[in-house]
């Protein structure tokens, strides 16, 4: 193995071991996006070191954890919680229940999905607040985003992309985490303007981020969604794979 290969392999090992902190750790995550060899080295070290996890004794999680997981995944059959219900009622999302029935399964299998969307509200507000802070110092005037959203799994979990919209209808998508994509798959971006029920395809996007321009027919406020599709994107004009991440963009003007 070359020196570079050795160096890369050790970096992967340090990352998996967990000794890298802060920017060093984030740099590895970013680099692994572009560097397949690093990505593979990380995967190999994950497997190599995993047996060490056996030295840690199992501890049963609290009994209320499963209901929480169920709730976050939109799996609970229970009625909407009081916390979620008013929010859902106030969301101008068309008639998701009807949609859910009409499509049957997948991301439109909708109660969980749409409930997840409502839950995103609070998180979004918080995340946008954080963005507002960390976006300082201000970029040049032409690039000032007028609205932004974090795209997170509809059923809860860590956000993966941030979308920043500019007045000229450009949307800049940047990954927040390292996005792994299986071979033969692509990510496709969709816009679902509030009040509408059929998402509009915005095209296949790169896992390392991309700038897209909204077609004239698409207006904020809207949901932005990223679905997992076969290579080349959906062939039907509707998401065929699951929606991995979604977020809400408020008005652009």
């Amino acid at each position, binding site marked *: 193995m070359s020196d570079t290969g050795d160096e890369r392999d050790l970096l992967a090992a340090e990352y998996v071991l967990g000794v890298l902190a802060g920017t060093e750790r984030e740099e590895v995550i970013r680099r692994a996006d572009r560097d397949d060899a690093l990505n593979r080295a990380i995967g190999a070290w994950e497997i190599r070191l995993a047996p*060490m996890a056996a030295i840690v004794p199992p501890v*049963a*999680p609290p009994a209320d954890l499963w209901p929480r997981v169920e709730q976050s995944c939109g799996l609970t059959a229970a009625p909407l919680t009081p916390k979620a219900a008013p929010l859902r009622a106030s969301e101008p999302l068309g008639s998701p229940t009807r949609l859910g029935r009409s499509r049957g399964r997948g991301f439109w299998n909708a109660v969980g999905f749409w409930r997840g969307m409502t839950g995103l509200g609070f998180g979004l507000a918080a995340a946008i607040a954080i*963005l507002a802070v960390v976006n300082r110092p201000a970029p040049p005037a032409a690039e000032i985003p007028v609205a932004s959203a974090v795209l997170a799994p509809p059923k809860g979990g860590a956000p993966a992309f941030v979308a920043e919209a500019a007045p000229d209808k450009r949307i800049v998508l940047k990954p927040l985490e390292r996005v792994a994509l299986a071979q033969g798959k692509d990510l496709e971006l969709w816009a679902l303007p509030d009040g509408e029920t059929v998402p509009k395809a915005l095209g296949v996007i790169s896992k390392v981020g991309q700038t897209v321009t909204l077609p004239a027919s698409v207006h904020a406020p809207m949901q932005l969604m990223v679905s997992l599709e076969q290579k080349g994107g959906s062939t039907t004009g509707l998401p065929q794979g699951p929606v991995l991440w979604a977020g809400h963009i408020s008005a652009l003007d």
Partner: protein
Amino acid sequence: MASALTGTGVRLASPSQPRNMRSRQSARHVRAIQGCPSLLTQRSGSRDDSDMELTMLLTRCASGDRAAFRALYDNQSARLHGLALRITRDPGLAADATHDAFVQVWNQAVRFDPERGAAGAWLTSIVRYRALDITRRRVRERPGYEPPEQEDDSPDALAQLVTSAEGAALRQCLEELEPDRRSLLMMAYADGLSHSELAEKTATPLGTIKSWIRRSLASLKRCLES
């Protein structure tokens, strides 16, 4: 990019892992299926069965099978929560990490490649990265926050590794390291300590820690491949 947000990322195990890595699958976590917590400490010696079972459950999760998700939770939650608790050293943060990990598993099971296998290692990676992110963000957001001290491993901690063929090989190679180097690797992996935390804990210069760890990792790899 916003450092406050990048910390939330959880790296997924690579989907493009070569198939030959299957030989290193870890299998110590497979138990009898039904979710009886008392069975969770059992370890199966049959790695193929165990990893195949986890792989099967993940594949079913990817297709939206809730019963499979529940079975996976019953089977793995104590193991993963143990890891999260050890790294976060805080019951609330650990529950958050375990919660997030399972939500991520459900949402992203489609991204697990059954051909690659190593389902247990995949799950381990997800919860460890999540616990590391949560713990380090807490430290960043609360200057002066000190997680409670961790008890040191019992001397026979290494013995836990022999429950699978991979574990036995790893143990053998760890035992070839100097005891203090070996203990650094174990503290880093199990407790989630960074270079600088290890330096502080062991009162050793940072540069020395970094170089010891690099050399130990390189020896470990050579040993495992020999």
